[in-house]
Structures are given as structure tokens and as C-alpha cells.
């Protein structure tokens, strides 16, 4: 039987409350940062919402709704906030629909000082155990309980595509590997495009789904702010999948200004691919002072997490006013 509206409203609130209780008990401080920003992190794959600030005097200023609170939370972290978390509304535009996307969604981010990405897996596992205890999921607890399955990207490519990822560090080699497995590849892909096309076509659909899965050590050639694992082609990054759906993304954060400047420049140039270009945070590469300790940041889709805990097949089962329903002009919550 479907959950009644009252059950859904209560569950929605309990989920957020339980997450807050978990982080507070661990000594993280909840923060509240701007959702409206005059600049963003250069992430050319993400389309954003643009608006305008109209000051009493002077010209209008373009503003953007944040696709994640990362730029503001890192500012706090770099200035000595200590361990912080928040559940913020985040916004992503040009969404093509589907059951796992809503242009406005709840994003949990938490940052921990003095630990790396592998330590954050333990935090995510403890969070799941806490939520299983507090929220009474509508599915067998064994499907969500820790320990999570851990699989490296290198192992996943080997196991599900028969590809030695460490040897495919050139776009043409990656393209040839895809083609030889019957995948239609673009003529001259970047390495990242060729990698994602092979990953999304051959590997991701076959990832094990019996338990939550941590897919770790992504190729360093995929541009992110994750630190590179020294002496390897991998970055210190993992993604969490539940039921084959991507739920969370975590890094050991890169804090070196030189590395970050290169990333900002390269990704900034790729903004021409976006339908809505945005201004880049001028300070992003230089936020962290020299000698800043190792730190890890994780972002987790709260609505998706609630969806899988509730045994729902779509975000429409958990978001009280799904975007598509609002657009259709229906005033009632999705039933």
C-alpha cells in the first residue's frame, strides 16, 4: 500500500532530523550558507539557474542558484571552522527528467578535517546504520546495512568490461577499447568522454546491487577537486550506489593552489559547452592556507537516500511537491 500523505510528511521530516542528530552527536557543526551566489565553482557539466540582483542603485548583477554548497562550505573549512555539515537546497537546471532527478533537491554535505576519503566511507556506513535504526525503512534492512561492498574502478572495468583501465590513459586507446566491444564512440572524444561512455554503457549497468556499493579510486583524468593518489593514475574519490543509483560522492579534497588553479582554468574554458555560463569564484583555488591538514568532503542526495530507504521507485514518492507536478499546475502533492 502506498504511504499516506501524513506518513510521507512525517518520514520526510524524520529523515532530515535523524541526519542532523547523527552529525551533531559526532561533533560536526551545522552551517547555513548562501543558496544565491554571485559566482560558482567551474563545473561545465552542470547547468545552473541564473537570476538577477537589483540593487537600489547601480546596474543589476547576475546571480546563480548554487548547484551545491561546496564553495561556501570550503570557505568555512579553510578558515578553521572544523568539521561541518549541512542539508542545503541545491539547484540544477536543464534536467531531462526521469525518476531520479528534480531540479531542486536536498543535498547533504559534510567535511571532516584530519581524515581522507577512506575514513568517510566509515562515516557513511555509520550514517546508514543510524538511519536504519531511526527511520524504519520499508524494505529488508539487510539490503541497506553496512558493511558496504567496496570495488575499485579498476576492478569494475576489469570485471564487467574486460578492460585494463590503468593501461587506457590515452583517449584513442579508450575509444578503441569501447569500439572493440561494440560501443558507438565519438570520432575524437576527450579521455573523460570516452571513459564515461564505456563506463555508462558497459560497467555501471552491471554493478552489484545486493548491498550498497562504494566504487572507489576514480581515474585522475576525470577532472575533479579530489586529490590524486600519489604515484598512481587514480584520484582519492568514491561514489556510493544503492540499487544501482548514485547516492553520494566523496573526495580527499585537493588543497594545493597550483593544482586547483589548473583545474579552474581548464574547467572554466569548457563552460562554453553550457547553455547558461556562470562567473567563477575568483578565490576558489586559493582558499586553503599552506599546510592545511588533509580533509575529506562528501555530498549525498538526501531525497534519493530517502527514496531508497522508503522502497520508492521515484523521487516523486518522497518529494512533497515534485517539480514536474508543480509545472503541470497541480496544487496537490503527488499522490
Amino acid at each position, binding site marked *: 500500500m502506498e504511504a499516506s500523505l501524513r506518513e510521507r510528511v512525517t518520514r520526510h521530516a524524520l529523515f532530515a532530523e535523524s541526519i542532523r542528530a547523527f552529525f551533531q552527536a559526532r561533533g560536526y557543526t551545522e552551517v547555513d550558507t548562501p543558496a544565491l551566489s554571485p559566482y560558482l565553482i567551474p563545473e*561545465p557539466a552542470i547547468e545552473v539557474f541564473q537570476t538577477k540582483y537589483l540593487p537600489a542603485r547601480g546596474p543589476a548583477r547576475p546571480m546563480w542558484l548554487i548547484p551545491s554548497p561546496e564553495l561556501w562550505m570550503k570557505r568555512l573549512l579553510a578558515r578553521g571552522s572544523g568539521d561541518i555539515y549541512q542539508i542545503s537546497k541545491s539547484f540544477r537546471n536543464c534536467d531531462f527528467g526521469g525518476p531520479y532527478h528534480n531540479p531542486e533537491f536536498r543535498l547533504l554535505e559534510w567535511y571532516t578535517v584530519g581524515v581522507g576519503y577512506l575514513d568517510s566511507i566509515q562515516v557513511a556506513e555509520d550514517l546508514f546504520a543510524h538511519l536504519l535504526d531511526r527511520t524504519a525503512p520499508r524494505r529488508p534492512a539487510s539490503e541497506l546495512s553496512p558493511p558496504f561492498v567496496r570495488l575499485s574502478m579498476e576492478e569494475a572495468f576489469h570485471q564487467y568490461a574486460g578492460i585494463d583501465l590503468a593501461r587506457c590513459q590515452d583517449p584513442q586507446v579508450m575509444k578503441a577499447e569501447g569500439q572493440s566491444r561494440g560501443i558507438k564512440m565519438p570520432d575524437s572524444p576527450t579521455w573523460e568522454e570516452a571513459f*564515461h561512455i564505456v563506463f555508462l554503457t558497459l560497467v555501471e549497468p552491471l554493478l552489484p546491487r545486493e548491498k550498497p556499493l562504494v566504487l572507489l579510486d576514480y581515474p585522475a583524468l*576525470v577532472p575533479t577537486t579530489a586529490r590524486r593518489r600519489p604515484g598512481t593514475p587514480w584520484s582519492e574519490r568514491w561514489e556510493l550506489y544503492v540499487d544501482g543509483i548514485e547516492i553520494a*560522492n566523496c573526495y580527499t579534497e585537493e588543497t594545493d593552489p597550483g593544482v586547483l588553479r589548473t583545474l579552474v582554468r581548464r574547467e572554466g574554458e569548457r563552460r562554453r559547452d553550457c547553455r547558461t555560463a556562470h562567473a567563477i569564484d575568483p578565490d576558489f583555488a586559493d582558499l586553503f592556507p599552506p599546510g592545511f591538514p588533509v580533509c575529506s568532503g562528501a555530498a549525498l542526495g538526501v531525497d534519493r537516500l530517502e527514496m531508497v530507504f522508503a522502497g520508492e521507485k521515484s523521487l516523486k514518492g518522497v518529494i512533497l511537491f515534485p517539480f514536474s507536478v508543480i509545472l503541470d499546475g497541480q496544487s496537490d502533492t503527488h499522490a
Partner: protein
Amino acid sequence: MIKASDIAKGTFILINNQPHVCVEREYVNPGKGSAFVRLKLKNIKTGSVLRQTNKVQDNLEDVSVEYKEVQFLYADTENYAFMDTKTYEQFTIPIEGEEEKRDFLKDGENYQVVFWEQTPIDIKLPTKMVFTVSEAEKAERGDTVSGATKVITCETGLKVKVPLFIKQGDRILVNTETREYQERVNN
């Protein structure tokens, strides 16, 4: 040409000069790098299924198709039979691979059929259709739990989960994509 981001379920595209229909489309944005559309495409001639992933900006070759208004006549064990409402010409479409559409085909009802090079290749169902409830259990006294449902059968054999107040002879609106009950329709 058609942009990969504009491809939807039911869009026709040409791959290696073979017409394919999109049967599944999933938008995937790994967040880092590029955004993609993951497609499951069915070859209209052979029925074979192809999976491919495209960047949202990619251009694909679309297929020029023609839509005709036709009347559904009957289904036998192998084919659906239709009649062109303008020319009265009859033709069939194989049921194989299109079994799930049987529940939505009402005798004598008009539908849109897609033709490619004079060959009928797909039946387009309206997103929402009205059906008459042919079999429904009576609600038990005391079934007042909010949100409780039961399964009824419509004139085509379509089974739908509906609220308890729906009874035999009622007309209901059904979403043909999700097979979900929408609302009761007043006679």
C-alpha cells in the same frame, strides 16, 4: 538531425542506416566531466536491441516517418489488425515485442500508427485513455483506510490498481505509460 538531449521514448533515429525506436532513455550526469543520455534502442526491422551512450550535445540522424489515423480491428495470435480510416486499407503489425500494447487496444477505437517507407512500424498510444471497468470486487464494509486500493479489470483485459470506491461499469482515466489510475470519469 536530432540532439541527443531531445530524444525521448518513442523517438525514431537512424543507426547505421537502420531505423531504431528509443525504448528507454536515461539522463545521466556524473556531475564531473560531461552529461550523457543513455539510450536503449530497438531496431524496427530486426527487433534487436542496442544500448548506446551519447553526450547530450551529440547530433543523431532522425528518421522521417509518417503518422496515419487508423482504426483497431482485432488481434489474432500473431498480429494486430488495423484499417486506414482514409483509404479503408487493412494492414497488420506483428504482436511480438508489442505485447504490452494489447491491453490498451480497444476494438473500433482510432489510434495513430507510424509508417516508415510505407511500412507500419509503431502504434502510438495516447498518454491517457478512458476505459470501462468490466470486473471489480465490491468494497468491503470497513475498508476506509486512506489510500487503500484494489485491482480491477477493464474491457480490454487491462488490470489497474484503483481506489476502493471504483465499481463495475465505472469509466476511469488510465495513464498508458505507467498503467496507473488517474481519476474516475463522469458519464
